[in-house]
C-alpha cells in the first residue's frame, strides 16, 4: 500500500498550487534542514526534470527555501521565503537540469553549508505531498520522513547495528522500518531508523555514548 493514512488523501493542508511541486518541495527542504540541524549560511539547490521546467510557476523554489528555513508546507510565509532567507543571511543558489536524466522528474538536490560543515541530500516528490529522500551524503537510501527518524553515520563493523537497536529497545522505542547503507565493507556507513515513538534527547545521547565518533541526526516529521 502506497498510502497508509486517510490524511494522505484528505491532506496535506498546504499552500498551493501543487502537492507534488510545492508541498513536496517544502518537505524536501525541511527534511534536509532537519538533518543539517541548523540554519545554513548557504543553500545550493539543483532541480531536475519537471521541477526544473516548471519550478517558478509552482513556487517550487519558494517552497524549497521555505523548508530549509524550517517552514512547514502549510505556512503562508512560504510565499516570502526568499526575503526571509535574505533576512537570515542565507545565500541561495538555484541550478536546473531540465533535460532528461536518470533522476525522477521531481528531483531536488539540496546542499546546505556553513562554517561548521555541509550536507548533501537528494529528495524526490512522489505525489500528493509525499516525498522520498533517496540520497544522504551519497548513501543511497529510501526514506519517507513520515515517522521520527534517527540517522547514525557510523563505521561498518559487527555489532554496531545491534548496539543502537539495544539502546532503542531499552528506551521502549519501536523500530518501524530500518535500512543500512555503506560505501563498502568496513567503510563509512549510515543507519536510517524510522521509529514509532518520538526520540528524546536522553535516547539520542545514549546512542552517542556507544561511540563518540558517531554523527547523529534526527528527522522530526
Amino acid at each position, binding site marked *: *500500500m*502506497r*498510502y*497508509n*493514512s*486517510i*490524511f*494522505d*488523501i*484528505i*491532506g*496535506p*493542508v*498546504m*499552500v*498551493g*498550487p*501543487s*502537492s*507534488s511541486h*510545492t*508541498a513536496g518541495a517544502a518537505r524536501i527542504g525541511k527534511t534536509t534542514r532537519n538533518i543539517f540541524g541548523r540554519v545554513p549560511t548557504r543553500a545550493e539547490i539543483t532541480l531536475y526534470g*519537471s521541477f526544473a*521546467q*516548471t519550478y*517558478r*510557476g*509552482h*513556487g517550487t523554489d*519558494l517552497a524549497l527555501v521555505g523548508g530549509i528555513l524550517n517552514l512547514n508546507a*502549510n505556512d*503562508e510565509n*512560504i*510565499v516570502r521565503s526568499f526575503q526571509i532567507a535574505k533576512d537570515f543571511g542565507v545565500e541561495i543558489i538555484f541550478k536546473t537540469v531540465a533535460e532528461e536524466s536518470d533522476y525522477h*522528474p521531481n528531483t531536488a538536490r539540496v546542499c546546505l553549508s556553513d562554517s561548521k560543515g555541509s550536507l548533501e541530500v537528494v529528495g524526490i516528490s512522489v*505525489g*500528493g*505531498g509525499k516525498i522520498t529522500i533517496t540520497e544522504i551524503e551519497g548513501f543511497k537510501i529510501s526514506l519517507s520522513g513520515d515517522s521520527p527518524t534517527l540517522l547514525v553515520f557510523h563505521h561498518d563493523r559487527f555489532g554496531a547495528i545491534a548496539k543502537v537497536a539495544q539502546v532503542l529497545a531499552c528506551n521502549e522505542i519501536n523500530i518501524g522500518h530500518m535500512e543500512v547503507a555503506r560505501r563498502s565493507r568496513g567503510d563509512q556507513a549510515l543507519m536510517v531508523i524510522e521509529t*514509532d515513538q518520538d526520540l528524546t534527547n536522553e535516547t539520542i545521547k545514549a546512542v552517542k555514548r556507544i561511540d563518540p565518533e558517531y554523527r547523529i541526526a534526527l528527522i522530526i516529521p
Partner: protein
Amino acid sequence: MKYRTVAELVKLAQEEGLSIGQTVMNQESQTTGRPREEVLSNMEKSLRVMEQAVEKGINEEVVSRSGLTGGDAKRLRDYAKSGQSLSKGVVLDAVNYALATSEVNASMGLIVATPTAGSSGVLPGCLLAVGKHLGSKRENMVNALFNAGGIGFVIANNATISGAAGGCQAEIGAAAAMAASAVVELAGGTPEQCSQGAAIALKNLLGLACDPVAGLVEVPCVKRNSMGAAVAIVAADMALAGITSVIPCDEVIEAMYKIGTMLPSCLRETSLAGLAITPTGEELNQKVHNLNKE
C-alpha cells in the same frame, strides 16, 4: 486498514451498522494507533481550512501568481446573486466554491489537497454547498470527509491519484468520486449508495487528459474543478434516487487506472499536447516563460 476495495469498505460499514465515514474514521484510529479524538480534531482542522479558502475565493478577487486565472469565483457569485443563473442552488454553489478553492490554490493560498492540490476544489465545493443546503451538523461534515478519504484511499492504492501517472481523470475524477460519495452520506444515503455515487461520478470523467497550459495548475485545472463538482453533485443525486452504476465502483477504478496507463505521456501533465499546445496555449506558455526570466 481492513479494506482494500470500495466493496470491502461498504461491507465493513454494513456489518458494523455504521456509515462509511464512521467506519473509515475507526479504521484510521485503529491502524495508526492515534486516539479517535485526535483523528477527528485533525479532520475538523482541515474542514476549517476548506471553509476559509472558499470564503477568501468568493469574496476577494484572488489572482494567481502567473496572472493566468483569478476573479472568476467572485464573478460567478455576483452572477448567481442576480438570480438569472440557469443552474441554481446547490449545484451552482458547489461549482462556485470549487472555483474559489482552486483560485486560492493557484495563488499559493492555503488549501487542503483532496486528493491533490490540483483537484482541491471539488470536495470542499460539494461538501460545503450540500452542508449549507441541508443545514448539516459539523460532526456530520467531518464524517463525510472521512467517507471521501476512504474512497480516495482505495483509488490511490489500487489505481492512482497523480495526473502525471493517470491523467486528469486520476485527479479530478478521483476528487469527484470522493465528493459524490461524501455528499450521498451527508444527505442520508446508504453506504451502498455512496459507492454508486462514486462510480457514476468517476465513470463520467474517464479519459480526462492532463494538459495544463504552461505547466501550471491553472488552465484548465481551475475550471475543471468546478465541472468536477457539478458532476459529483449530479452523480450523488442519481445514487440517492436509487440509480446504480452497471459497472461496480471497483471495476470503474480499475478501468480508470488502465486508461491512465494507455494515455500517451504527452497527455499526462507534460504540457506537450491538448490545450497546452493550442495557439493560445503556446502563446501563454511563452508569456509565462518570459515573465519568469525577468
